[in-house]
């Protein structure tokens, strides 16, 4: 940035190297930007970029491969955990993670994530739950809150017709193949920090050779929610967490599996 070569200022935070220096297509204030940055920071800090094969999903984050400077394979919508399984099995030394939205992971990709988890695939899953189908224009997702208005639940999500928000990470945490499962959020800087710690743990679990690790991140979709970025953050902080409580559900490297979520 600086046009003066003799910049003597000591950097205490800079854009991570693994984050390509380009502007993203995300809407202003979109949580994906924050989470991309966290992934990139960890790739830098853990020196993982050269050994990483990322698995992109279909959703607003489909372009993750344009923003993260690592090898990437694109998956059909929902199939990232299967694609990651393929990568993982033939590349035992690679660091493999998927980056998936809630429509991708918790709707169309349910079978794939459940069975990657049941098999205990040694992959890390970054699960960005913004409670909506962002990319296609803000339709209801299985994660959408009750009463929430979306373009496909214009009268608000009603349980009797559209069912209940799905606590998929709690379901996955039941499986012995899941070594680590946690839910964080990006609603403010301290929570962002906590989420980053969860992601770090998830990555460590993979590096330790254990089973599947997943971090669900309560994110924002200001455009899909019809809110300002500021309102969206507040909504996560106060409302979304009521349905999706934060915390570590299971860490089977630390504690023995209990079979029940430890939310």
């Amino acid at each position, binding site marked *: 940035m600086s046009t003066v070569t003799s910049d003597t200022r000591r950097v205490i935070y800079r854009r991570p190297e693994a984050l390509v220096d380009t*502007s*993203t*297509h*995300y*809407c202003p204030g979109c949580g994906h930007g924050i989470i991309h940055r966290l992934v990139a920071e960890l790739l830098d800090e853990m020196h993982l970029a050269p050994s990483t094969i990322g698995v992109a999903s279909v959703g*607003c984050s489909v372009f993750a491969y344009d923003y993260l400077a690592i090898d990437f394979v694109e998956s059909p919508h929902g199939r990232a955990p299967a694609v990651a399984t393929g990568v993982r099995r033939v590349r035992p030394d690679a660091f493999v993670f998927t980056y998936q939205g809630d429509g991708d992971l918790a709707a169309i990709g349910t079978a794939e994530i459940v069975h990657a988890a049941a098999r205990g695939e040694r992959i890390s899953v970054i699960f960005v739950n913004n409670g909506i189908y962002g*990319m296609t224009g803000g339709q209801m997702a299985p994660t959408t809150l009750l009463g929430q208005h979306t373009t496909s639940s214009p009268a608000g999500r009603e349980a009797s017709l559209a069912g209940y928000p799905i606590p998929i990470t709690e379901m996955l945490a039941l499986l012995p193949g899941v070594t680590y499962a946690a839910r964080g959020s990006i609603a403010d800087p301290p929570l962002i920090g906590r989420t980053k710690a969860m992601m770090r743990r998830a990555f460590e679990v993979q590096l330790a050779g254990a089973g599947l690790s997943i971090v669900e991140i309560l994110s924002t979709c200001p*455009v899909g929610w019809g809110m300002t970025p500021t309102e969206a953050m507040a909504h996560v902080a106060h409302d979304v967490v009521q349905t999706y409580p934060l915390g570590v559900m299971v860490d089977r490297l630390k504690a023995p599996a209990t079979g029940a979520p430890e939310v």
Partner: protein
Amino acid sequence: MQHATVFSGFGGQGLLFAGKVLAEAAVIEGRDVSWMPSYGPEMRGGTASCTVIIADRPIGSPIVDAAESVVALNPPSLAKFEPLLVPGGLLIINASLVEAEPRRADIEAVPIACSALAREAGDDRFVSIVALGALIARRPIVSAASIREALGVVLGDRPALVAADFAAFERGHQAASSAVIKRRRARWRYRRRLRP
């Protein structure tokens, strides 16, 4: 007679809405119409656009390779759609955001401070309706009365909103009626205030 207009600018500038209003006005006048948006996630960043074709007989292609009018509300739009104009075509430029001047000398370029006028009219988002006013001032493909009626159709039973939009339309209409027509060649340059 067939008239194709391309509205283009940033997503969020109300382009699709202005195009719909024009299209509805043409339907009101009993013409054949086709309104075709650019769609999908690309609308979120960069340039969005829609094409409105108005004709007196069944319309062929809803996608055009030549337009009679172009409304360019931001710099990339100008670059992208100016070449599409037929000779003698109309180019409405949002002078509030676009400092560049058109490259072509064979068109009628009308710079209007659409964003500024929109803000004067009460909301930044009127920018496209202001531009629509300018368009109709120069190319009365539909009447102002039809536009007013069309606003009612598109906005539904919200008279205050209709009135506000129509006021914005009139601002643009008036500005274009008095604007100087630019016909000189110009080199493309982006606004350079980007990095302070």
